[in-house]
């Protein structure tokens, strides 16, 4: 009998090794099928891409602030794209395009969802790994290839794609239209197809894992909000990314085979093109049918992470757990019927515009529910201002200040003035850019001990937070006023237009703020990479949190738990429960061990448990009175 039990544990230890007892460097660090390692791969690739995209933004900010000044150093690095130390107009367009593409897709979709869905889904629902670890590995390597191809477009003669991150045809569909529409655009499309394939493989895996592989007792209404957010994000991806593929396939045919899906009545120079009958508006429909859910793909994981982190660090249950979930579901559903608000000025039927306006404004309701719930969670909490907590609060701040301008832009009539101006730039950089990146950084600071078994320095974390927080507002807030004045986005030199010249001084402020914010990231990068090797060794549950991932040992092992997967008995937010011994009760603690703190509603109408609880309370009247 003893041999059997011995063998049993042994089998669990090597649970997912499938017979391979030794891991080589290649299977452990490169082609790893362990969700925790894949999460780290996504995170580090995401950080590298974020640094690159931030660098690109500094380059075009230099141009916007000092359009008449030469920076000889730029020519050293960029060669012919910055001849005489000035960024060329063509390259400026490439910069904004690739900045947008990398940030939206590679950092805030793959870097955020890829990292935290992979890390937290198996750990927080109690699974050994993903439904298909192999598909998961493939997902990372498709993403990596997509990154390499996207960056590769900087090393070709004609430069990277330049038609904006939305790559509207006909500009993007005609290889000779601008230099960036040549090979660079082709590489962009290839890279995006790989990226979508990666996202789909990831998303399908996440949904299947969450629905099928939860541990005993983990019903859907006991899942942490992070898991709910990742789940709904993955569903959004599965339902919307294929439409982008459809659009991209047609665009590839238009570019390379001469079809007319998006093209009609085009004159290039003196030459009339043969394409007829297509419509570029149809691209916009297909693109924004993905594109709008995409912004929720970006923000919902950040919302989930912030909810979890704020509850842990406020030492309070999340306010309105069910409302938080229903609002996420509401956002998920509504996000599919609002895409038209990106197209109010394309000649859309005003009646249809009105419909899209109403659906868009209704999204403010679940968003506001979430916001008020976060504020109510903070209200009278024993707040621990860890760096993760600060970033989570920062996320809420940006979500509010950026979300308010969404109500302006969602109006079909106001949008006539505001569309394609810096007002839009300000809006989405706050509400989805800064908010999502703060949610991501909150997640990095909070889950660093889980990923690397060590702590990040909180002093550097505070420095990083305050500079980034202040500078993000200094960068994006002034842009609202440019937009209200009608300054269009993507313009190369403000000095060329009489009415825009007065804004150059504001641009100088914005650019300096951006440079300081970029320098603040050095504090983060140093902290991150230094702490991986030299950080303080973490304890098993450094934040005293309730969720399952903190019941795994600090040494990370394939299969997550050395013995059996723990059973879950309660929801994840029992913080500061009256009558409890500690201010947190992990999900794995059964109610029979916490008789002094049980509430009638804990038993969900189970009359037997209620009876036992009543009997216990009658036997221990003193404890009951203290409640």
């Amino acid at each position, binding site marked *: 009998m003893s041999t*059997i039990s011995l063998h*049993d544990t042994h089998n669990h230890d090597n649970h997912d090794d499938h017979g391979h007892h030794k891991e080589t460097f290649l299977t452990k660090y490169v082609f790893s099928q362990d969700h925790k390692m894949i999460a780290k791969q996504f995170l580090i690739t995401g950080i590298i891409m974020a640094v690159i995209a931030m660098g690109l933004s500094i380059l075009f900010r230099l141009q916007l602030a000092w359009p008449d000044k030469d920076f000889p150093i730029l020519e050293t690095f960029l060669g012919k794209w910055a001849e005489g130390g000035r960024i060329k107009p063509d390259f400026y367009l490439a910069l904004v395009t690739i900045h947008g593409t990398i940030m939206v897709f590679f950092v805030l979709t793959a870097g955020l969802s890829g990292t935290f869905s992979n890390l937290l889904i198996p750990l927080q629902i109690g699974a050994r790994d993903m439904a298909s670890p192999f598909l998961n590995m493939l997902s990372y390597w498709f993403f990596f290839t997509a990154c390499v191809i996207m960056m590769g477009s900087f090393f070709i003669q004609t430069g990277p794609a330049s038609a904006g991150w939305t790559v509207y045809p006909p500009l993007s569909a005609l290889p000779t239209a601008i230099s960036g529409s040549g090979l660079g655009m082709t590489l962009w499309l290839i890279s995006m197809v790989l990226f979508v394939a990666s996202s789909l493989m990831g998303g399908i895996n996440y949904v299947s894992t969450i629905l*099928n592989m939860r541990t005993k007792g983990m019903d859907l209404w006991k899942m942490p909000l992070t898991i709910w957010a990742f789940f709904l994000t993955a569903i959004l991806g599965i339902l919307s990314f294929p439409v982008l593929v459809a659009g991209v396939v047609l665009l590839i045919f238009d570019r390379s085979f001469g079809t007319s899906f998006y093209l009609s009545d085009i004159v290039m120079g003196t030459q009339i093109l043969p394409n007829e009958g297509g419509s570029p508006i149809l691209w916009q429909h297909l693109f924004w049918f993905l594109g709008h859910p995409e912004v929720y793909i970006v923000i919902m994981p950040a919302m989930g992470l912030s909810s979890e982190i704020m509850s842990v660090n406020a030492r309070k249950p999340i306010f309105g757990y069910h409302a938080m979930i229903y609002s996420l579901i509401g956002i998920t559903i509504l996000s599919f019927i609002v895409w038209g608000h990106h197209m109010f000025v394309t000649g859309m039927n005003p009646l249809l515009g009105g419909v899209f306006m109403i659906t868009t404004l209704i999204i403010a309701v679940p968003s506001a529910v979430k916001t008020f719930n976060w504020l109510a969670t903070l209200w009278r909490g024993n707040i621990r201002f860890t760096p993760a907590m600060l970033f989570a609060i920062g996320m809420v701040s940006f979500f509010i200040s950026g979300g308010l301008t969404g109500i302006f832009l969602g109006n079909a009539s106001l949008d006539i003035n505001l569309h394609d101006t810096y007002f839009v730039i300000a809006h989405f950089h706050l509400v989805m850019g800064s908010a999502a990146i703060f949610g991501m950084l909150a997640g990095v600071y909070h889950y660093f001990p889980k990923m690397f078994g060590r702590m990040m320095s909180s002093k550097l974390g505070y420095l990083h937070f305050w500079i980034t927080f202040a500078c993000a507002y200094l960068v994006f807030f002034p842009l609202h006023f440019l937009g209200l004045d009608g300054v269009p986005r993507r313009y190369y030199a403000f000095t060329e237009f009489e009415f825009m010249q007065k804004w150059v001084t504001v641009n100088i402020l914005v650019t300096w703020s951006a440079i300081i914010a970029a320098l603040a990231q050095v504090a983060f990068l140093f902290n991150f990479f230094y702490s991986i090797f030299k950080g303080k060794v973490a304890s098993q549950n450094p934040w005293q949190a309730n969720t399952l991932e903190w019941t795994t040992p600090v040494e990370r092992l394939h299969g997550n738990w050395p013995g059996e997967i723990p059973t879950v008995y309660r929801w994840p937010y029992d913080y500061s429960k009256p009558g409890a011994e500690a201010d947190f009760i992990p999900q794995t603690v059964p109610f029979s061990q916490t008789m002094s703190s049980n509430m009638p509603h804990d038993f969900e109408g189970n009359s037997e448990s209620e009876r036992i609880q009543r009997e216990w309370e009658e036997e221990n009247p003193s404890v009951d009175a203290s409640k």
Partner: protein
Amino acid sequence: MVHTLKEEDLKMEAAFNAKPRKFVVWLFVVSSTIMFGGFTSYYIVFAASKGKGHGLVLPDLFMYSTAVLIASSICLFLASKALKNGNIGSQKLLLWGTLVLGCVFGYLQVDAWGTLFHTGAAFVNNNAAISMIYVVSGLHLLHIFAGLCFVTSTLVGAYMGISAEKSKFRMDIASIFWHFIDILWIYLYVFLLLNS
């Protein structure tokens, strides 16, 4: 004793893992449906705004290929049934049937493109609705190719004599996927017939 326990354990694990993996295939079916939904919505909006569809009489070959595809689906269904009854021999035979019929379908589709091309409805066309016929049938053909891979893997499994759970798992995956692409093609064909 220990040895049997290990095997049982592994079996349990395989059964445990089969369900989420099958679910992965279902989710892929959903996302693929959405992609074709994207194409057909393009078609609907295009046709509505231009007041014209592809305006063709679709080649009869599409009708034959549809019949072949339905036959292949029935074949696969019978193969699955044979496996359930433990009749590996007829399962193999029926899987071969599915493979052959799948290849015939592919051939007929390409032949239909030829017919379309010769009647003047080329892929590069100023009527995007006609180009769309090629796009949807082409991408569907890619799915057929993937489906053939699944069927082949089931067949190889049957010859190699893999465990009953595994061969049932492969059979299930192939069935989900193959019946899906069958229904998908019927949808596309009917869609193109109705929206000419």
